[in-house]
């Protein structure tokens, strides 16, 4: 595929998905900061009096940090992660994707599965336990995932697409319903 047709296809796809923002590249702190500053002003222009802008922004940041936390930094291609934020009449959807080491998957999957099973009340209890626990080597202790689940109010969807013997592509989707 030529670059022109690839760009066109990406554009068609993103417009169809009503993308507010899509980014594919290296998620370094500066790129993320610029991205977030931009999306923050976009969101606050859309959601003037609903407070939704802050919720979406907050979930978005946790999703991005989740990418950074679990990204496998291999070759140049493997450093490229992706982020998509789209909006429909009823919800905002955030999808992230990044390369991950296969040996990291079982523990992460377990966390995601645990969070997916919990009710809103149980999620809050788990949040409490995690926030009050002493910092460990795993400096975030899954608080991000719990936070995403609480704030989005919807079940997190995820997928691991095996790429090589050692790596996979980790996709995470979260939806935030728009308050009526």
């Amino acid at each position: 595929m030529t670059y022109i047709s690839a760009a066109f296809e990406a554009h068609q796809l993103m417009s169809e998905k009503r993308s507010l923002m899509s980014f594919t590249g290296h998620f370094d702190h500066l790129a993320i900061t610029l991205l977030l500053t931009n999306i923050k002003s976009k969101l606050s222009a859309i959601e003037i009096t609903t407070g939704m802008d802050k919720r979406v922004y907050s979930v978005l940041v946790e999703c991005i940090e989740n990418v950074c936390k679990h990204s496998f930094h291999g070759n140049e291609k493997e450093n490229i992660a992706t982020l998509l934020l789209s909006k429909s009449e009823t919800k905002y959807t955030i999808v992230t994707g990044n390369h991950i080491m296969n040996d990291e998957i079982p523990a992460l999957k377990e966390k995601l599965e645990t969070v997916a099973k919990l009710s809103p009340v149980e999620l809050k209890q788990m949040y409490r336990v995690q926030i009050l626990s002493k910092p460990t080597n795993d400096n975030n202790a899954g608080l991000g995932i719990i936070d995403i689940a609480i704030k989005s109010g919807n079940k997190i969807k995820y997928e691991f697409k095996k790429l090589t013997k050692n790596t996979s592509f980790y996709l995470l989707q979260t939806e935030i319903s728009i308050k009526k």
Partner: protein
Amino acid sequence: MEPLIIRGTENSPEVRLDATSNRFIITGKSRPENADKFYAPLISWIERFEPILSGRKQDSDGNPIPVFKFKLEYFNSTSAKHIAEIIIILKDFVEKGYKVKIEWHSAKFDDDMLDTGKEFSNMVDLKFDFIEY
């Protein structure tokens, strides 16, 4: 005691912990690149503030009650852990009989920030003053 003053940035909050002027505020956005590193001096400062509080306790009244103001527009989950750590220290001060207050500010319409404050308040069983801005 030397004040701790940190300028706010696009990612990190403005901090002013000043025993002399009796101002204690954390305000802005908190998504520092390294939250552990950012919050370590704050936590250490608040811990070192204890002897001053304890000295004040023996004073007859007249010393204004230290009010710790949290006026955060946004914070990430890693920062939340450190904010909780600060609140736990303050709760510990209260349990020791020192007079300390917590003000939790949230923007109008920002129910999530208000709820987080309420959650923190319940979590440590300490009354906060909630203020909308």
